């Protein structure tokens, strides 16, 4: 369902240079205090691609996503969006650029002081893109797009289930018709059926022309179902010296045949040497 905004400017500058990747990370390093989270990550995401990032908890997946949007600043390296290094843009340009992003947060991050309708309308009103009845129409369109009835618009986030909140988060992210969708663990904490609903919604969104998606997930079903390409990040502290933090980069089919033991372990959900670590730490505690 396509919505025409009365005075939208989000569709401008959308073309860009199709031969250039939409997002590029150039030797990007992220540190907190003295702890390195991401080390010299180099990655490019072509336009229209759905890239899924997998990796164990604490390996820096969410930080990668937040650095792409400019929520965290890298220690060194560049994050280039459509030719612009986003961390050198001024506040005004960065704000305009963010209108091209749709971010679905892990726990939806809905504003609990607002109704669902106000949540979805927030980006429109923030940027004066629609008013009055147009706002209502767009809100109802977006709710319908994620399979929720109009009556949900009057409810508060606390009145909805986890799955419904995730869908509202998706509706809010879609409201400005972004060209880059970012999902932070979209199926975490949901039942298998609701996870599949979210997967289907992500597939539908990715199928729209000019939409590029970056999805962070632990859920291999999601990875296999929606990805054009999968990369796996490994915690920096566990890497051998000089080893790249991206230990796998390929298609979902290639992921199934990956030769790296760590990748196979993650895909098959095996604890492996982590179990040994648990045993040795239990032994140390006992001693």
């Amino acid at each position, binding site marked *: 369902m396509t919505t025409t905004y009365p005075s939208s400017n989000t569709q401008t500058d959308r073309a860009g240079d199709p031969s250039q990747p939409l997002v590029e990370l150039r030797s990007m390093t992220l540190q907190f205090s003295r702890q390195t989270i991401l080390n010299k990550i180099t990655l490019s995401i072509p336009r229209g691609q759905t890239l899924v990032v997998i990796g164990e908890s604490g390996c820096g997946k969410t930080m990668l996503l*937040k650095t792409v*949007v*400019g*929520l965290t600043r890298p220690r060194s390296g560049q994050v280039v969006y459509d030719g612009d290094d986003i961390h050198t843009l001024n*506040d005004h340009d960065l*704000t*305009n650029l*963010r*209108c091209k*992003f749709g*971010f679905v*947060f*892990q*726990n939806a*991050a*809905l*504003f*609990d*002081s607002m109704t669902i309708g106000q949540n979805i309308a*927030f*980006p429109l*009103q*923030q*940027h004066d893109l629609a008013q009055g009845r147009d706002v209502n129409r767009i809100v109802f369109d977006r709710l319908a797009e994620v399979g929720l009835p109009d009556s949900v618009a009057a409810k508060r986030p606390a009145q909805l289930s986890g799955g419904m909140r995730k869908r509202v988060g998706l509706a*809010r992210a879609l409201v*400005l018709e972004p060209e880059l969708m970012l999902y932070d663990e979209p199926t975490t904490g949901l039942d298998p059926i609701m996870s599949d609903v979210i997967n289907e919604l992500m597939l539908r969104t990715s199928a729209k022309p000019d939409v590029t998606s970056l999805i962070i997930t632990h859920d291999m079903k999601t990875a296999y179902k929606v990805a054009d390409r999968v990369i796996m990040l490994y915690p920096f502290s566990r890497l051998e010296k000089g080893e790249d933090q991206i230990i796998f980069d390929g298609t979902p089919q290639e992921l199934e045949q990956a030769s790296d033991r760590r990748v196979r372990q993650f895909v098959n959900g095996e604890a492996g040497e982590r179990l040994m670590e648990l045993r040795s730490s239990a032994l*140390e505690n006992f*001693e």
Partner: protein
Amino acid sequence: MSSVPSSRPNKIPTTELPGLRDSLVRWVSDWGGLVVDAMTTVGDMAIFTYRVFLWLFTSWPSRGTILPNFYQVGVLSLPVVALTGTFIGMVLANQSYDQFRDIGLENQLGAVINMSLVRELGPVLAATMLAGRVGSSMAAVIGTMRVTEQIDALISMGANPIRYLVVPRFLACIMLIPALTIMADFMGIVGGYFYSVVMLGIDHYQYLNNSRQFVGGWDFFMGIFKSFFFGGTIAIVSCYRGFHCQAGAEGVGRAATAAFVISFVLILVVDLMLNILLNAVYTSLGFAGKKMF
């Protein structure tokens, strides 16, 4: 651990009182860390305040964002400020009466009660109530928004969280605290009058006449002028603590407590500094010992 290597190198030379040196190094390191942390916080807060003022002078948020904050800070704080003011007026009368009666000056009670109220107790009490009722709540709300990624969501949608969350609260605090101060003053005066005249039987004419003689417009101005700074301090400190809230329920709790404690201490510090400044101004204008208006 049972397996201590027998060939571990002895890093501390035994001839240099290692215990004393280690303690000294630790002491310097701990205090150094505290000083660095404190300076970082002050610097961070200064940048935060600068950003608030930048938005304040460039682009205000919409009326729909500002009005709920005005309601929260102003309307909902009014009853508690009025009640506190009334009782403080009565307590002042009760506490001062015996001492003034002993020296035969009980008729001067009105001047003392009303002067203390409009210069000091009214503004400080209103600010303390605001810090407790509104400041902690601001820190808790913004802290929860930080912990649940709602602030990240605001940023990712192209909204500036300082403009959207802090500026309305700052405006509400500095614009409505004078009204709350006036209410605290008024109710304190009423409470003090009621207790002194009705309960203690002080002469009505003497009470009011002495008040009129000693309490002037400058005293009211002083209290209200100071309240603007108190309001600004509460808003900045509370919002800052919320923005820098640590993760989890404990983090939000700590942010709310710290918001009140720091605001209260700063209110008293700012109060002293403004008192010194305003008294100097009053004296330099040549009104020392006289009523300006």
